[in-house]
């Protein structure tokens, strides 16, 4: 977002992640349980092509997104709800700020929303002098720690119970404890006050349903139900693709979402909101505002290479299986969206050059595609991003990312097409490599710009005689044997 210049690099943050012991433990736990678990559930489906059909429906909905959102808007407005379309993050933020100022809002409670992090909602409200409290336990811990979430579903996976105990001792003024039930109870007490007294609740939207005119939200804690029931105003921030056309489609997406996210048939609460509560109701919001956010999504929708990524339902299953995320954690991705999905969506929303490391950091092993409930081909899209970074792309304002690498590979390409020159050079390199060989006969340190190739791995040396030479020698030798045999 706006903090590009001051942020630490992908490589530095990845190294920090690797050294963070609580994070490593948390990542191992979540990957062993949830990543494998989701794969197991997909395998257990009575109908193996189910995910494909859900995906087909999802893509059909996206191809009719104008019609679908019009239906959603019509149905919500009929119940007295407000719908605002925000072309940019700033438009969405301004809409909420204006509303908050008009209604003299002083305290906001939030339900976990990545879209709100994407548009910088909390910072903007705080700058306007409004108190903002995250109410999902993980998000609350992250907020107290003045930190950012490192997993889509488990925001504070990088902190262990001792760190959280010290944090609560310091910030909530309670005796130190590292007992999760006690810590949860303390947060429950502190947050209940906030939830029962806030003027405005802000949430995201997991899956809206156009046919009935509702947004739906899943949670296990009940914080989202609180935030949409107790305050007088409910604002839902929704990425414009997060909508099912019909209830039928909603049913399939919901069940894939809760299974993919946490191996649950359903989360504890699935709540549907489609307008303000009826006059005279003892609870529920007097005003309901749905902010539908583009912020770069229409550009993704218009590009056949990437429109598939809008099928994503943000379950986080790809984080739970990715070998790269599983080592470096979420902070390295520099975005509310981490893991394989983050490596695709973050560059598309916030600039491909700006986040060039992300698509190159992933391994293209294909695990994310296998575990994705809608079978999004993330490895394919990562490759397309790499291609754009290598050659540039005016449509996405991409400039070739690494000019010297580009020059090197152009030269290399010419070289391998000139066999004579190539063989001379290989033989020459065999001699020139000698000063770089380590004791165990590996190349462990290359000079100059090539040093990056050997920072984290050793390369095998160039063989003294090449395969081609050996082949030729072998051929000559066997001919000699044949000739000898004929003579005898």
């Amino acid at each position, binding site marked *: 977002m706006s903090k590009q210049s001051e942020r630490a690099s992908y490589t530095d943050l990845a190294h920090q992640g690797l050294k963070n012991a609580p994070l490593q433990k*948390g990542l191992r*736990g*979540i990957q062993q*349980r949830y990543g494998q678990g989701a794969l197991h559930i997909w395998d*257990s*489906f009575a109908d193996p092509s*189910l995910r494909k*059909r859900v995906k087909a429906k999802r*893509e*059909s*909905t*996206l*191809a*009719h*997104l*104008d*019609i679908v*959102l*019009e239906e959603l808007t019509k149905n919500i407005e009929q119940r007295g709800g407000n*719908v*605002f*379309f925000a072309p940019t993050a700033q438009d969405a933020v301004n809409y909420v700020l204006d509303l908050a100022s008009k209604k003299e809002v002083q305290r906001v409670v939030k339900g976990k929303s990545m879209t709100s992090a994407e548009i910088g909602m909390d910072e903007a409200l705080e700058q306007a002098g409004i108190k903002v409290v995250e109410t*999902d*336990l993980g998000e609350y*811990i992250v907020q107290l720690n003045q930190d950012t979430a490192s997993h889509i579903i*488990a925001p504070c996976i990088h902190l262990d*119970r001792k760190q959280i105990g010290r944090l609560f001792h310091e910030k909530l003024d309670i005796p130190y404890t590292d007992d*999760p*039930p006690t*810590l*949860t*109870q303390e947060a*429950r007490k502190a947050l*209940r006050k906030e939830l*029962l007294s806030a003027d405005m609740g802000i949430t995201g939207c997991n899956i809206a349903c156009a*046919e*009935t005119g509702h947004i739906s939200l899943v949670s296990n*804690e*009940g914080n989202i139900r*609180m935030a949409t029931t*107790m305050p007088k105003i409910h604002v839902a921030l929704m990425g414009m693709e997060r909508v099912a*056309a019909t209830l*039928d489609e909603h*049913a*399939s997406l919901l*069940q894939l979402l809760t*299974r993919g996210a946490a191996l649950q048939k*359903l989360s504890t*609460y699935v*709540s*549907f*909101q*489609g307008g303000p*509560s*009826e006059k005279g109701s*003892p*609870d*529920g919001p007097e005003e309901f505002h749905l902010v539908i956010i583009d912020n770069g999504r*229409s550009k993704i929708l*218009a590009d056949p290479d990437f429109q598939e990524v809008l099928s994503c339902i943000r379950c986080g299953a790809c984080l739970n299986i990715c070998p790269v995320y599983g080592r470096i954690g979420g902070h390295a991705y520099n975005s509310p969206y981490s893991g394989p999905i983050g490596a695709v969506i973050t560059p598309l929303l916030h600039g491909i050059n700006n986040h060039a490391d992300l698509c190159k950091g992933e391994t293209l092993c294909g695990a994310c595609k296998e575990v994705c409930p809608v079978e999004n081909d993330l490895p394919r899209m990562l490759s397309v991003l790499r291609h754009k970074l290598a050659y540039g792309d005016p449509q996405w304002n991409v400039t070739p990312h690494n000019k010297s690498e580009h020059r090197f590979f152009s030269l290399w390409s010419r070289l391998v097409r000139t066999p004579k020159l190539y063989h001379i050079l290989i033989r020459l390199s065999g001699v020139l490599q000698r000063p770089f060989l380590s004791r165990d006969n590996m190349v462990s340190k290359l000079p100059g710009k090539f040093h990056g190739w050997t920072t984290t791995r050793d390369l095998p040396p160039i063989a003294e005689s090449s395969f081609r030479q050996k082949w030729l020698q072998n051929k000559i030798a066997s001919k000699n044997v044949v000739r000898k045999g004929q003579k005898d």
Partner: protein
Amino acid sequence: MNNHEMFFNKLHSICSQNQGQRTAATFAELAEAHKQIACPVTDSSEPIQQDVVALFQHNATPLNLHVHRCSDWQDAAATIAAIAQQAGLEFTAQKEIIAHDHPDLRQLDLGPLLAKQRIPFHLTSGNGAEIQKNTRNSFIGITAADWGVAESATLIQLTTEGRPRSTSLVPSIHIGVLPINRLLATLEQAYAMLMNIPLPDSFVFISGPSKTADIEAHMVHGAHGPKEMHTILVDTEGKAV
């Protein structure tokens, strides 16, 4: 051009370019086309169970949801009174109970029963501010559910007059009451019910007590919603749906 027109015009021009998948011109056409692609989510590992009550109970156990099967409304009322007697207080100094003002729950006739335990009993009817106050003062909230879903141990509740949302949310303990003839086997069947009625501004699926595993994946019940939940399944004259 207003906000909506601008947005829809832009989106329309983008979607129109997608000739491969764009087949419908209206929402009705799209909904019809989607009907042709059926996607019921079913696990083959699911035990085949004729008895929906047993299936509900089976799926409730891992959710820490207590299920009570009651032979009639009187039995249900006695079960609730017993829960009220045993359960401890969390946020308040004395025991009070609030219940949805709904025909099902009126049959329970809980008032006199709870009076024996000196527990003030409120219904969610009348003045809104009064209901709010009573809800916050209550340690148990009793709700009337529309349907139950056995495959996920879920209660589905529509928010309608007399059935506010906070009754199942703010008190420490939630008791959901459901006549067995409204217990369905699958979520798919429940969605089919929802498709056939005009839906209110709010409804909710509830599967067990509130929980969190945000601290080192350690499961704790009672994050923000009720820390304890009971489902009372009441045998009724009518046959199962």
